[in-house]
């Protein structure tokens, strides 16, 4: 039997039409099953905060132990720039492409401004 990791790519269009809790449930339900989720555009800071909170409530000893989440910083992280300061608060800052997977199964090998290199294990704790 061929073994592998299921990768779910969620488009920006689909994400835009979901509420915060729908996005979080979509992500977590998939990650809890052992899948890796790739969001075409990331979550807002408030959504990330909610994701951490809900993730903590889903952790079970001996079972789901949380998530790995990475995004490349890109322009969004450069909030120290003059434009970032001038227009701060006009719209919620959205991260760029984000990879989320089960803790212990997804590891980031390289995180650069515009490039992520990830490694996924077939089993947890790898």
């Amino acid at each position, binding site marked *: 039997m061929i073994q592998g990791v299921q990768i779910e790519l969620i488009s920006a269009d689909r994400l835009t039409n979901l509420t915060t809790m729908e996005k979080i449930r979509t992500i977590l339900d998939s990650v809890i099953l052992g899948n890796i989720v790739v969001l075409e555009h990331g979550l*807002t*800071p*408030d959504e*990330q*905060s*909610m994701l*951490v*909170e809900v*993730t*903590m*409530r889903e*952790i079970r*000893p*001996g079972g789901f*132990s*949380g*998530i*790995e*989440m*990475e*995004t490349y*910083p890109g322009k969004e*992280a450069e*909030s*120290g720039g003059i434009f*970032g*300061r001038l227009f*701060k*608060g006009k719209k*919620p*800052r959205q*991260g760029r492409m984000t990879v989320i997977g089960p*803790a*212990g199964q997804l590891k*980031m090998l390289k*995180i650069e401004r515009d490039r992520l290199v990830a490694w996924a294990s077939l089993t947890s704790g790898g």
Partner: protein
Amino acid sequence: MSMFTRAKKRLSKFFQNIFRRKRSRIGIYGPPNAGKTTLANRIVRDCSGDAIGPVSEIPHETRRARRREDVVITGANGNTLSLDIVDTPGVTTKIDYHEFLEYGLEQDEAISRAREATEGVAEAMHWLREDIHGVIYVMDSTLDPFMQVNIMMVGIIESRDLPVVIVANKTDLPDAAPSRIKSAFPQHPVISLSGLEGTNMEELYDMMTEHFR
């Protein structure tokens, strides 16, 4: 008590309630084992001679947010400020009880610690969204500042427009490189210090009295 005295007292209370300045609640945030409780203890001890909670090398020693009210900070510049200091559990996206077994904890104790730690992190995130007016964000200056949790937390703090002072902690360690934190977050004030040894705390107090006013 005469009617006049009662009315005077009521009126005085009414005006006190209107004009009383609410103390700011300052949350001490950061990843596990960054030295948040050591720093919180140092601040509270310097300012009130007391401590806020126990510390340990085992991650997630702080599993409940702890608040110390009315801590009066005095900067070398002479400014003073009264704050509530909230020491919070280390923020992370994963908690595995097996990690605690490596520190010699029994399985039951490790599972119970993991359960409490998950509740603590959820609580800390909730405090940040609802009840915190400013943040001291603590990083271990021996580690890579570009950890996802740091990027995420600073993003959350910025999006809520909360004043933040970043602390590059553990400068007493030989591998400490606080300059990495300064270049990673140039948009925020960064203070290099050792919460354990209490070095450079005056600079932090100065910054707090300016930033959290």
